[in-house]
């Protein structure tokens, strides 16, 4: 009934950054979609993965768990995870769980790209 009410689009934000747009609900049901999108975004070994939460409708604790799993994979590849488009509520949640220390939050995609500094 509530399986995978989520869509994710992968594109290249920059030569060093793979981006994943998360649309809909990030819950436990989104695991496969998220991991597949991550694999796609990681093709060509970008140094960072940008998570775009602009069209996120809902995220629960299982969704947070997924982000943690994602972080674990990214760290193995020495990849940074960046986030844009979080609403005030979900920013609060990132701060609460200290996820924001591992996944840096930016206001815009440009800011996120700029944070990587020189190539």
């Amino acid at each position, binding site marked *: *009934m*509530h*399986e995978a009410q989520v869509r994710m689009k992968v594109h290249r934000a920059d030569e060093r950054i793979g981006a994943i747009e998360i649309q809909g609900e990030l819950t*436990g*049901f989104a695991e496969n979609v998220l991991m597949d999108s991550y694999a796609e975004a990681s093709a060509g070994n970008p140094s960072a993965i940008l998570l775009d939460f602009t069209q996120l409708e*809902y995220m*629960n*604790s*299982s969704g*947070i*768990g*997924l982000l*943690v*799993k994602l*972080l*674990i994979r990214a*760290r193995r590849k020495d990849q940074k995870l960046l986030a844009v488009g979080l*609403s*005030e*509520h979900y920013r609060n*949640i990132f701060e*609460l*769980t*200290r*996820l924001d*220390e*591992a996944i840096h939050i930016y206001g815009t995609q440009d800011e996120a790209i700029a944070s990587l500094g020189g190539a």
Partner: protein
Amino acid sequence: MREIEEDRARELPVRQIPLFTALSEDELQDLNSKLEQIELPAGTMLFREGDLGDRMYIVLEGEVEIVKAIDTSDELPLAVRGKGELVGDMSLLSRTRERAASARIVQLTKLLMIPHSELDAIIRHHQEVAYDLARMLSARLQESDSATIKHLQVKNQQLTQAYNDLKAAQAQVIEKERLEQELQVARDIQRSMLPKELPSIPGWQISTFYQPARAVGGDFYGFVNLPDGRLGIVVGDVSGKGIPAALVMATTLSVLRGISRDFPHSLSAVLERANEILSADIPPGTFVTCFCAVLDPNRRHLIFANAGNCLPLRWLSGTVMELRATGMPLGLMPDATYGVQETFLSPGEGLLFYSDGIIEAHDANRKMFGTSRLSSLVTANSGSGAEELISSLLSELHSYTGPGWEQEDDIMMVVLQENTIGTVDKTSSVEAERAEPEPASSILAHFSISSQPGNERLAIEQVVDAVRYLNLPSIKIERLRTAVGEAVMNAMEHGNKYRANLPVDIQVRATPAELAVRITDRGEPSAIPTPTMPELEAQLAGLEEARGWGLVLIENMVDEVRKERTDTGYTVELVMYRNEDSDHG
């Protein structure tokens, strides 16, 4: 030679007249000397039909028009007489000497007048003149006859046309009367199908208004008392008019009533079945819009579904919203489906069901009343009772449309108002203050969901719906969603082990000071896990499972979490304070 003849002709115009060829030169001269010449301008009436005539004329120059029945609707031009022709000779034959027709000068004309007495004298001496005269007159008569016959033929055609037109007009009148009768019958059918009396439900006010338009009909409303004590409410509108529309309305109401007994617990099944039946039975192109609701008056629980009707309004102390459900009108698509929505009504809340007749009423400039005007009026009158609201809306409608407004569509309103805390009692302002309820806690909603993954979303939506009148800032609503979602998931997972047959009970309660959501599962004592605080770094390092964030969220999203173990299960109560000071960081 010719010139001389012309001269002579000029001198003696009488010479030119065929009638006088038998006269001798002397006689002609004699005649000529007795005859007077006159000259008349165009438009002069030489003589009128019916006048007594004692002379005839010869046209020397110009033209004279001979007209029968001049200046009447039967006016008939007979001839135009020119140079050398006689005018006014017919009266010679008439015993009464009456002019048989009128003579009018067409252009400047010179005439020679010949008194009858002179003609008589000529005829006495030259009888052949009498015969010539007779022949000439006979020719005149024929000429007159032909013209008359033609004239009569034309008249006949005109009469036939007029007769046909009259018959057609008559047929129209008959048809109009027949339609009028049919409309009256249709109105009677419709009236008979409407409830004769309103249901009486303790704690609720119900009021209705119904005013059909003259020619259009089709609005209807009905109530069904369900065996379990709930009340079914239906309002709708049949397209089309006259007897067919009235019959469709009757059919719809009886279909809905009958089906609701078979499917009292499934509103969508009722509408789907009604749609199947109507799609098959009603004339093509006819359809029925309809909004159905079932109210549990004790729990203040309402379920509803819509088949293309206007969205009813709900209000409480100055806030107005819609009851939103969508679906195709009945009778259009045989396999249409209808989603059912549910909500809890707050104490004192009111509902207005209506049809588009009021929305589409227009003022003198053809501007429509519109839904926003209706909403504003409901807001402004939200302190009134059901009947007062209806009269306010009606008087606003009447001032909007102005005098002489012709009602084009039925006007229909059904109002339900929850009345247990007496907020609508307006006996006097002082009494009203005293009657103001103590900070009673109001139960805004009380429902259960089965323990299946994903159902926490339903719970979230119902809780958010239940608090709609509390005017919580949106950031608090977001926190509430998260807290409720996590707490319900915990209840389903840890308490009920995701066993679908075990429900999670949720109760939403408000006092002026706080909002409380109680979430109860059927968990056994041993089922409560001892929660450990998750740590991100530990999880990232693989030292912990990447889970357990629910409790962190819950405890940080609300102001207080109260836990309670009862005989039947385990309850978590999420509390959010309602005053500004409790700004939760």
